[in-house]
C-alpha cells in the first residue's frame, strides 16, 4: 500500500463526517479544513504551500467547480494538484471536473486505498512531516 507522503492537504468539503474521515485516513498529513469554496480560498491564502487540495463539488456559498476555477486562474495556486471527491458520479460530472483542471476524480463512497493511491502518486518525493 502506498504510504501517504504528502505534508499538507487542504480539504474543501462541507460534510463534518468526511472531514473526520480524512483526518483518520490521512493521519500523517497536516490537514487544513474548509467547509465551502469561499473558505477554501481564504485558507489557501493563509497556507499557499499546500501540496494537494481535496475538493467536494456540492457546497454552499461557492461550489467546488467555482473554487477550482479561481484556483486555476491564480498564478500562485494553479500548480497545486486538485483531487475531486464527490457523490456526483456521472460521466459528464467527471469530465467537467477534469476539464476544469482536477488531476483526479474519486466518487463517493470511496475506498481508503483508492484515495491513498491517488495522493501517493501525486507527491512521491516528499517526506512525511
Amino acid at each position, binding site marked *: *500500500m502506498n504510504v501517504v507522503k504528502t505534508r499538507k492537504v487542504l480539504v474543501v468539503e462541507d*460534510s*463534518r*463526517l*468526511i472531514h*473526520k*474521515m480524512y483526518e*483518520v*485516513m490521512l493521519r500523517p498529513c497536516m490537514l487544513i479544513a474548509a467547509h465551502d469554496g469561499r473558505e477554501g480560498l481564504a485558507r489557501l491564502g493563509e497556507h499557499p504551500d499546500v501540496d494537494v487540495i481535496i475538493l467536494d463539488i456540492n457546497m454552499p456559498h461557492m461550489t467546488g467547480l467555482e473554487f477550482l476555477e479561481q484556483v486555476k486562474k491564480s498564478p500562485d495556486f494553479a500548480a497545486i494538484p486538485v483531487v475531486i471527491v464527490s*457523490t456526483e*458520479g*456521472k460521466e459528464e460530472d467527471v469530465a467537467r471536473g477534469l476539464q476544469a483542471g482536477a488531476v483526479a476524480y474519486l*466518487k*463517493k*463512497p470511496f*475506498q*481508503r*486505498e483508492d484515495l491513498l493511491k491517488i495522493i501517493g502518486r501525486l507527491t512521491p518525493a516528499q517526506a512525511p512531516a
Partner: protein
Amino acid sequence: MAGEPQKPTYSGMESGDPLATLMRARQLIHDAQAAIEEASKSVVQQRNSSAEIPDREARLARAENDREELASRLVEVEHQVGRLMTLYVATYQLHATLDPTDVQSTIAEIAVNLLGAEQFALLLRDEEANSLEVRLQQGAIDASWSGGATYEGGDPLIDASLIDGVLRFGPAEGSSVLVVVPLRVQDVTVGALVITKLLDHKGKLEEEDRELLDLLGAHAASALFASRVYARAARKLRTLEGLIKLVKKG
C-alpha cells in the same frame, strides 16, 4: 638459420642417463595423474552444483508464492483497515453531538457519503403523538407516504421492520424500498432509516455495507435518543431557571 622444429626436451634426458629419464617420466606420469584427479573433482563438483539447481529453483518458486500471498494478504488487511476506519468515523460522528438536528444531519451524511444513498427518509417515533414522523427526506421518493409529515403504515417492508426490529432488504411486493434499517434502543424500535434509491455509480449494496447498516441501527438510535433526552432536560432546566428568576424578582 631455418631448420627442423625443435623437439621438446626434458631435464635429464639430454644427459643420456636412462635412469634419470625413467625417473623424469615417472614424475611426469604422477603429475598427469594429479591433474586428472583434479579435473575429475572439478567435474564432480560441477555435477553436484547442477543437481542443486532444481532444488534452488523450487525454493525460489516457494519464496515467490509466499511473497505473492503476503502481498495479497496485505491488500486485504489494508481494505479491512479502511472499513474499520469508516465504522469508527461513523460511530464517532454520531456521538459527537447532543443536538438532535446535528445527529439527524450525521445520519443523512452517512447515508449519502458512506452508503451511496440518493433517496432516503428517516422515520422517528413521536411518543407524545404516538406516530411516526418523517424527520428527514432526501430525493423524490416514489411512495404514498413521501412528502408527508408522518408515516401511517402501508409499506410491507417498513411495517415488518418496525414491528420486529429486523433489518430488511428489498425488493418486496408492494414496496419501493431497497433497505429498511430499524433504529433500536434497549430492544425498542424508535424509528427507521429507509433507503429507496442508491446513487447510479454505487449500483448495489455490498456485503460490507451490512456492517455499516447494523452500526446505524444501533448507534444512530442511541445517539438520537440521548440527544432528545438531553434537549428535553435542557429545556426543562431553562424553564426552571426562568421560574427561579421570577420568584426571586417577586
